């Protein structure tokens, strides 16, 4: 799984991983030295307590001071080095990239609202819980939250950055190679913090553009009778109070946009694989999967539910 801070796939995560290795390495060496010195000190102590006279004692004291002084000086040097290493990595990570793709990510309990910025307002893509980015091009995320503090973390790509209500923060993503990477919320945000995950697809620039064009389309119109029934169930029951499907009257914003729900690989913020049976379970009893989530249990007749899931599965 591409969900590791150590097996990295981007330059930013690599810098952080290298810093991690440096810190762990230095700390490990220091630890070993200290433990050895401790053992040596314990074993040596008995022999060193007896002194012949004052001169010997003073000589021993002087020697001690030299050792302590040297060790302190070495510690300070090591700490300064580590601090400098950290400073330079932080500076590198906070640089604003040029020609970055801008994406606005808004945290909710417990899902990620994603909107791709564009100077032409009608070209802005809106989706949820899943990012698609072109390989090699930096992506600048503008992060904020609608309710409590969340934190955006794609371990293989970049470090953590908080999403704070009333503020915007920013983070940069750069993927070096194509692949699917997963991330999670890294700041406790409520009952389902642990299941607030996201998925990122790093793809070639052509694939990204194709995906973007598809996402700009309005929701696919139902083609079969069952899909039509499903759309009717969608617009007539409680779904439209929270969800939106472009091309229908559903334009609510408190829940994820579902215009292209079938093009996403997971449901419920990375919790379930996206298929019709999971979708049905999610609609009927979301609290069995994520108790405490805002999505309510929706009572539907089995035929209606089947039509609805069929319709949602058609929204590529």
């Amino acid at each position, binding site marked *: 799984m591409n969900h590791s801070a150590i097996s990295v796939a981007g330059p930013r995560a690599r810098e952080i991983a290298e810093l991690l290795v440096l810190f762990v390495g230095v700390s490990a060496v220091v630890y070993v030295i200290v433990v050895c010195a401790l053992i040596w000190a314990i074993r040596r102590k008995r022999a060193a307590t007896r002194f012949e006279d004052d001169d010997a004692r003073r000589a021993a004291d002087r020697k001690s001071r030299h050792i302590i002084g040297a060790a302190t000086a070495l510690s300070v040097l090591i700490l300064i080095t580590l601090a400098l290493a950290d400073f330079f990595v932080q500076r590198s990570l906070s640089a604003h990239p040029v020609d970055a793709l801008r994406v606005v990510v808004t945290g909710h309990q417990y899902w990620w609202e994603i909107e791709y910025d564009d100077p032409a307002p009608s070209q802005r893509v809106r989706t949820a819980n899943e990012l698609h980015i072109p390989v090699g091009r930096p992506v600048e995320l503008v992060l904020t939250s609608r309710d409590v503090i969340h934190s955006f973390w794609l371990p293989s790509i970049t470090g953590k950055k908080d999403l704070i209500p*009333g*503020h915007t923060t920013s983070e940069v993503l750069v993927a070096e190679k194509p692949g699917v990477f997963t991330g999670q919320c890294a700041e406790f945000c409520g009952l389902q913090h642990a299941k607030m995950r996201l998925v990122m697809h790093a793809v070639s620039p052509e694939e990204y553009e194709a995906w973007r064009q598809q996402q700009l389309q309005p929701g696919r119109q139902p083609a079969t009778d069952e899909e039509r029934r499903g759309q009717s169930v969608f617009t007539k029951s409680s779904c439209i*109070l929270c969800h939106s499907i472009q091309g229908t009257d559903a334009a*609510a*914003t408190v829940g994820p946009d579902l215009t292209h729900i079938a093009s996403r690989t997971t449901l419920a913020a990375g919790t379930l694989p996206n298929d019709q049976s999971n979708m049905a379970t999610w609609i009927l009893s979301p609290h069995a999967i994520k108790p405490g989530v805002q999505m309510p249990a929706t009572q539907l007749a089995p035929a209606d539910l089947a039509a609805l899931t069929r319709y949602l599965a058609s929204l590529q």
Partner: protein
Amino acid sequence: MGDKHEDSSTHRHPTRKLFEIGGRRLGLLAVAVLAALWVGGPLRAQQGAAQWPMPAGDFANTRFSALQDVTAENVSQLKVSFTFSTGFLRGHEAAPIVTSDTMYIVTPYPNVLYALALDEPGAPVRWKYEPKPRASSQGVACCDTVNRGAAYDSGRIFFNTLDNTTVAVDAKDGHELWRTGLGDIRRGETMTMAPVVVKGKVLVGNSGGEFGVRGWITALDAATGKIAWRAYSTGPDSEVLIGPDFKPFYAQDRGKDLGVSTWPRDAWKRGGGTVWGWISYDPELNLIYHGTANPGPWNPEQRPGDNKWTAGVFARNPDTGAAKWFYQFNPHDLYDYDGVNENVLMDLEIDGRMRKVFAHPDRNGYLYVIDRETGEVLSAKPFVHVNTISGIDMKSGRPTMVAEKKPVVGKVVRNICPHAAGGKDWQPSAYSPTTRYLYIPHQNMCQDQEAVPANYIAGTPYVGANVKMHAGPGGHRGVFTAWDVAAGKAAWEIRENFPVWSGALATAGGVVFYGTMEGWFKAVDARTGRELWKYKAGSGIVGQPVSYRGPDGKQYIAVLAGVGGWAGAVVSANLDTRDVSAGNGWGGVMADLPQHTQQGGTLYVFALP
């Protein structure tokens, strides 16, 4: 003297006949009659002015009465001639419409149309027409269940009902001629505006910018009620009726399908731009002028882009609806600054030559003078304290917005001036060609605003703003300003405790009338603003005063009292003012209104004794 529209050519025949029959006395009588009628020429011309066929008075929207019986010298003697209780208690914003012998009043919901017989003592009800609009429509009317009046044309009365029907009734006996349903209350649409009849077409527009409604203006055939054309305020050019004739003055208004591309995704389908305000008409240029309201939702972060064609003014061909030009007062509006206020047509000398212009006091607090042939902004000057806009760039026509006052989701921006109801809301101004002043009833208000994400659910409010209003600098909430249009500045102003939510009326006698929300109906000197007379009505006045010559030859001034409207909802809808955001922000600042007035619904008609 009830004759209408006789011209002098018909008088020669009776005279010749009489002489032929013989009889000197009869001949003398005929001559006397002729002389009286001839002398009565100017009077007849004034009798033509005795009608008030549409709320704005005339197509130029001057609200000016040429009658001069009531003057600045004698107005202090004005007395109540008769009153009439409508039987309803919400905001009475309508203007009484007057023909030679009948007065027509449309009440707030349930929009009863009364015809009062002016030629009988006490003006009893000749007939009434009850359209019976759907009661649920009261639940989707943002700003009190008001109606701004009917319109008379060719023996028919036209008006709108709250539940989106335009009705035509016979002006003589009130029987229904046709009714056409035009909108859907389940989408949050209502209709409150007064129609205007231009060349056999009834022009009407919808309301609902606070419900995510897509705005439109529609022309109905006056004889049949069938839709002749409809122009939307957002969406593709073909639906906005933008075609090859469209020549906007400014570059930002040129381009294909801007009504789609200046919105994210399909937000234009819920984009507002309703047409609930005033419509003017220039017969020479054959153009109508109408504004479009705010974009929806109020929260601007949900609709990046200029949001065409909201918060602006269209010039259209009344026969086809084709747009001639458009100017946007507030691109990407941030504060609910609708563009629907009146466009008062006038000819003005600018830089040595006469220009055909109109004056438009906008919600954003600026008084615009715009060339009505091309849409060029000739001048724009603030008539209230404005801190949201630092100026209008005359080259591009765009307002320069103040960055610190921009609403941001999750933040409270304080002291935004003018507030959402603007420097001036719907309440229409009047123009006197004698003084050349524009008499503007308006307010002096600011607000704190917090943008919140708006959740669209069809048929429920789609706003996205928590608002708390307060009085502007000076502490007075209302103002009545006389604006010297040519000079571009105020000549005088009268400060009022409450927003002046009534219309204004200017007369050739040099008197200007307006009403206050406490219920004072005032007459002031048109030149100096000195208060000449006032009368305390039974309830606050938010209606439009009119003047007419009655069948007995006297000049009358008529106005509806009955507090309400958006500013008066605290009383008319009995709100709880402990919540300062009640009534979309008015709750806190109008908490003292109930001490000054209660609900009411009465017509007052005044005349000299």
